[in-house]
């Protein structure tokens, strides 16, 4: 009986275990045909290690990048820019969002701005105190961006990059606790 339970567990484990990486849906790839500008970055661990060997030790941006990618397993980016709104629909990112509904993922930020029409969601997967994966889904009417970073990463490193790469740094403030919710 004990062996049977072990056998069934071994057989069922792959089915119930959460996927290690986010799969890019095929319909996301189809958007590249409609987009006027496409960025596709696929970097596995081997490529990340290769890239880190070519980082200029005198360049602070590259040294920061080297530090960030040193333990990463993969980095995938898809960014589609469209010449007019309405070229993509919510269903195009629904499959990614559905993968991120798994309990191992926590959505730490979900921003929907009616003023700027910019939506951004940040999901984290963690083991203990260590963040092991990060996914960003950002959408505005003419741009859809998906970033998946697999491997131990400190999100503050990404925030720190605000001072690098010529991007003005923005201070992240935690919203004040809602008094109503605290009751």
């Amino acid at each position, binding site marked *: 009986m004990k062996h049977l339970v072990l056998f069934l567990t071994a057989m069922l484990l792959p089915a119930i275990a959460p996927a290690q990486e986010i799969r890019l849906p095929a319909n996301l790839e189809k958007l590249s045909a409609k987009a006027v500008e496409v960025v596709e970055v696929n970097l596995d661990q081997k490529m990340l290690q290769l890239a880190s060997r070519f980082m200029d030790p005198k360049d602070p941006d590259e040294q920061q990048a080297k530090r960030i990618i040193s333990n990463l397993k993969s980095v995938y*980016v898809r960014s589609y820019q469209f010449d007019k709104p309405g070229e993509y629909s919510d269903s195009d990112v629904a499959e990614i969002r559905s993968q991120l509904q798994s309990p191992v993922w926590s959505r730490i*930020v979900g*921003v929907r701005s009616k003023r700027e029409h*910019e939506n951004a969601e940040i999901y984290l997967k963690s083991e203990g105190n260590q963040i092991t994966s990060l996914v960003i889904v*950002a959408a505005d009417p003419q741009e859809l961006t998906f970033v998946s970073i697999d491997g131990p990463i400190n999100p503050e490193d990404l925030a720190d990059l605000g001072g690098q790469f010529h991007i003005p740094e923005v201070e992240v403030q935690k919203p004040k606790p809602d008094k109503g919710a605290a009751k």
Partner: protein
Amino acid sequence: MKRLEEELRAALKREDPPLGFAERVLARAAAQAHQRERTRWARFRDAFAIHRLQWAAAAVVLAVIAGGVGLRIEQDRRAEGEAAKRQVMLALHIASAKWQVAAREINGQSNARTATPHDETENHE
């Protein structure tokens, strides 16, 4: 008839070889064998001597080809590394920029939360 017999007998009479004949035959055979061997080696040596320049040219060509292949492999590896580096920088640039979008919205909305209820922000941090 008798004379014929005598002539035949004289012609077919067994005669011993001159003294040292066998040694001279063996010595000559050995000398010819040595000569043949020397000739073969000399031919090979001469052939090599004739083609020495060609061998040297072939070695130089091989060295140049090996060097070229090595250089090409190194150039390809460097190009691949530089391309990977550019992709990393681009990916981090985009990730950082999108992080900044979220951060900017959180900052802006938390500042104006009570004033303008236009935006919805969920921060689970």
